[in-house]
């Protein structure tokens, strides 16, 4: 039987609903956040294509993520031991109050296996991708 109850999570003072299929599991945590094992992905419907990545283990740990391919057309990170068709790619966004100074981490994307929902942050060896890439045309 599939259990797909709607749950609620508070992010930045606002309640969001989510289902189990939005939960991802970081077996090794995120780099610098080894205790973050479960997190939920919540699209910011009004601000496409951004999503919240909110830890379910620590209510203070929240990130903004984006599918980097939607922002950088040519982004093509090399996935070792992963099937590209089944992998969802996300990148952490560092927001700046001056929006033009917002950057995206292309050096260490998050790969999510769409079937198993297991996720990992991978550090690419490719030196063309930067830790703090500026948005195109800013």
């Amino acid at each position, binding site marked *: 039987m599939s259990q797909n109850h709607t749950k609620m999570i508070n992010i930045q003072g606002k309640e969001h609903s989510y289902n189990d299929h939005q939960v991802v599991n970081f077996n090794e945590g995120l780099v610098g956040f080894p205790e973050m094992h479960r997190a939920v992905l919540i699209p910011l419907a009004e601000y*496409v294509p951004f999503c919240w990545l909110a830890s379910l283990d620590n209510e203070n740990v929240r990130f903004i993520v984006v599918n980097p391919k939607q922002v950088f057309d040519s982004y093509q990170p090399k996935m070792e031991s992963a099937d590209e068709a089944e992998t969802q790619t996300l990148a952490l966004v560092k927001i700046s109050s001056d929006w033009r100074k917002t950057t995206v981490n292309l050096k*260490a994307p998050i790969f999510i296996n769409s079937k198993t929902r297991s996720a990992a942050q991978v550090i690419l060896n490719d030196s063309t991708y930067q830790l703090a890439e500026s948005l195109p045309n800013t």
Partner: protein
Amino acid sequence: MLVLSRRIGEKIIIGNEIVVEVLSISDGGVRLGIKAPKETSVHRFEVFNEIEIANKAAEIAISEINQSVLENLSAHICTK
């Protein structure tokens, strides 16, 4: 910290699967060969440290979020 002395060609094993071999030594530098399972990530410490700092900065930067920033970002990306 465990400290071991090794010569060129000698190895150490970490856990049951990770093997580190001293390949060569020159000018104060050491070349290491590392054999580890695919799912074990191996990086130069500085690189790992940089990512850690970047992740923490991204998490802290959440406090800079406001409606106008998100509106501008979304509009910029969707119309590019």
